[in-house]
Each structure stands twice: as structure tokens, then as C-alpha cells.
């Protein structure tokens, strides 16, 4: 317990780094997979190869990707860019399927109604297609976020891993406390992130609540 008191600053710093390394790839993944998914619904022959490619990329072990990326990108082996790019690749591989499924779940008559009242493509995608696809996209986003938060720790082996560095410290010093603190904080972070995403989804899809037993006044 005294260890925790003596190292609060360090723990905070690693928690902050952990959050950064997990959330930036999640946002980048979303920013990449939405346009990519839209293109795949427009040119539907692209959808299956993209989903299949995502499956292959997602099967790559994270530690392998962290090490192969510097050879491809020309970055330093101990650069946090590798972690961010690797986790972004995982995020896109998983999200692309959900974005395609979500955009395809928009009913045809809704699309036609939008076009007939004069919506342009961009306005229709942003204000109609995407909101309707939110539940399906968020299902993927929750998996990506939780998986990313647990995967960041592996980076500690190559020296950049947020809370994962508590694991390597504890292991090297044969000392249990930092490891337990790291595991608990990592689980808590995943739980809080998941709850926030569920809340955000509720805010983004107010119509989903209308179906609740309480009728509107």
C-alpha cells in the first residue's frame, strides 16, 4: 500500500499514457473505417475482400505487429507511433465490418425518401445513414475500445505500454503490488470506457428510447 502512495505520480502518468495510446487509435480507426465502409457499400464488390483482409490483419499477434511496423514505416523500434498504428490497424479491421453492416441496415425507402426531398449525398450520409447505423457501429466500437485498452499493455515489452510498464516493473522486481494495481486500473479503464460508449450511444440515438414502455406525454 505504501508503494501506491509513493508512486501516485508515476501511476497517473502511466494511466494517462495508457488512455492516450488506446483512444487515439480508436478515433483514428473510426475516422478511417467510416469513409472506407461507405465506399464499400457503394462498390459492393469491395466489401467481402475488405472484411476478409480485416480478418487476416486482426489475427496478427500484437507483439509481432509492434515489431514488424518499424521495418515497414521506417520508425524507431521504441516509438509510440508503432503502437498507435498497430492498434489503428486492429480497430479498422474490426470496425470495417460493422460500418458496412450498419450502413446496409438503412432501409431502402428511407434512402429514397431522403433523396426525393432533396438531400445531397454528403448530407444524407452524415445526417441519415450514419445515425441509423450508430447501434451497429457502436457494437464494434465497444469491442475495439475494450480490446485496445487491454492490448496497449503488451507494448510495455518494447518499452511503451502505459499501465503495462507496471507489469514489467513488478516482474523485474519480483513485487506483486504494481502488477495488481496495473491489472485493476486497466480493467477499470475498460469498464469506464464501455459505460461511456453506452451512454454516448443513448445520446446519439434518442429515438431508440421512444420504444420504452413509458409513453411520451
Amino acid at each position, binding site marked *: 500500500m505504501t508503494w501506491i502512495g509513493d508512486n501516485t505520480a508515476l501511476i497517473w502518468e502511466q494511466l494517462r499514457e495508457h488512455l492516450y495510446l488506446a483512444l487515439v487509435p480508436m478515433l483514428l480507426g473510426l475516422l478511417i473505417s467510416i469513409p472506407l465502409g461507405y465506399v464499400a457499400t457503394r462498390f459492393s464488390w469491395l466489401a467481402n475482400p475488405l472484411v476478409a483482409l480485416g480478418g487476416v490483419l486482426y489475427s496478427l499477434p500484437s507483439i*509481432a505487429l509492434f515489431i514488424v511496423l518499424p521495418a515497414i514505416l521506417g520508425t524507431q523500434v521504441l516509438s509510440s507511433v508503432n503502437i498507435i498504428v498497430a492498434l489503428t490497424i486492429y480497430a479498422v479491421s474490426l470496425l470495417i465490418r460493422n460500418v458496412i453492416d450498419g450502413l446496409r441496415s438503412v432501409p431502402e425507402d428511407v434512402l429514397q425518401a431522403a433523396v426525393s426531398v432533396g438531400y445531397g449525398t454528403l448530407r444524407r450520409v452524415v445526417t441519415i445513414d450514419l445515425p441509423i447505423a450508430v447501434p451497429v457501429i457502436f457494437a464494434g466500437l465497444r469491442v475495439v475500445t475494450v480490446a485496445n485498452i487491454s492490448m496497449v499493455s503488451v507494448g510495455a515489452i518494447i518499452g511503451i505500454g502505459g499501465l503495462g510498464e507496471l507489469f514489467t516493473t513488478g516482474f523485474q522486481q519480483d513485487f506483486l503490488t504494481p502488477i495488481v494495481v496495473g*491489472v485493476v486500473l486497466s480493467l477499470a479503464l475498460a469498464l469506464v470506457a464501455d459505460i461511456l460508449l453506452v451512454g454516448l450511444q443513448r445520446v446519439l440515438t434518442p429515438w431508440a428510447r421512444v420504444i420504452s414502455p413509458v409513453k411520451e406525454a
Partner: protein
Amino acid sequence: MLQGFLDFISDPANWSGAEGIGNRILQHLGYTFLSLAIATLIALPIGLLIGHTRRGAFLAINTGNAARALPTLGLLTLVVLLIGIGQVPVIIALVVLGIPPIMASTYAGVSGVDRSTIDAARGMGMTGREILTKAEIPIALPLIISGLRSATLQIVSTATVAAYVALGGLGRYVIDGLSLRDFPQMLTGAVLVAVLAILLDLVFAAAARYAVSAGLTGRRRRNSDTGWSSSPTLRRLRRPGGHLAALEKGPR
């Protein structure tokens, strides 16, 4: 850098002996299959039981979700510090990671079997055990295999990380290369483990295709075509929205 990698991987000296690439691959596969087998022996019966009785679904779903949030390196270091260095604690950690995906997807597969199918099986006079082995398991097989597939990928990947806590296998190249600042050696380990993961994934994809009952996929079998695969009943079940349409989309 790439040249160094090619030199390392093409040097016959690096392929032979106890620390050679061949032996490292065998070790890696050994850990993977041992852990997968133990995890399956534990998770499959529990998943089947929960799915068949439809009691305790809470357990199956929540362990699956919680396991996804568990940091693997944290689990490995924790188990090793608690039990001591060696292969046994690492295998225990790998088994712990393999259980949730197998249990969750077995449960999902079995509990997702249409109630009317089970009623029909019971109506034909099948006992609970027969319903499980002749109806529920064959229908749930695509999902069960997909659970084994995720468990395998998780274990292959974590077995690499486990080299950090003194396990053999392909992760040794990564960890030893890192401490020696020998990047070609690290890259060799990373590339080999990535190839291994993709190959195992393909094996499971193929298994999912061929292990599933021909009666469900409509895949023709030589000498045993009873005409069922072209029967009007099956065609009706396969219609979009029919009972089989969803299953035929495959495991994922």
C-alpha cells in the same frame, strides 16, 4: 535492416538445434495445442451445459466480456510471480485466456438453436442427451469452431508475449533480440509468429467449412445424396428469413 532479417532467416545455422527456428516453431505449437486442449476440456462442457439448460447465461456472457478487458501481460506476470517461473504457470495463464471465447461461443451456438427444432427432436422421442449430441451440437458447430478459432489466436499471440516470462517458442527471438538490440532476430520471430497465426486461422476456417453437417450447408456428398439437398422443404428453409438462411452465412 531487411537485409539483416533475410540473412538471419536464410542462415541454416539458425534453423537447427534446440534453439533453432524449427524447434521454436514446434515448441510454440506445443504450448498452443496443450493450452487449447485443456481450455476446451474445461470450457466446452460448461458452455454446452449452460446452452442446453439455458441457465447461467449471465456467467457465459460476462466472463467473455471481462476476459477481453484482461491485460494478457498483467495476467502472465501475476501468475508467474504467484506460482513461480516455469512452463506450468504460463500454461495456466494461456488456459485462462482460452476458456472465455470457447465457453461464450459454445453457449451462444447451443442456446441459439431454434426452439421448434428442439421441440421436433423431442417429439421424435430423443432424450435430452440425444437432443444435445444429434441436434444442438451439430447446429452449433460453426459457432463452436469460431470460438476455438478466437481462443487459438489469443493463445498463439499470448504465447509469444510469454517469452518475456521465460517461456520458449517463437517469442524467444523477439525478447532475446530486444535485449541484444538485434533487430533482424526480433523481426524473424515476429514474422514467423504472424505467419503461424494466419496459417492456424486458415486451418480453422477450413474446419468450419468441412466439419459442419452437409444437411445444414447443403454441401453435396458423394454416394449419400438422398435427394434432401434439393428437396422443396430445404429450399423453403433456405429462403431469406428461413431457419437455415442465417446458419448458412457461416461462422462469422
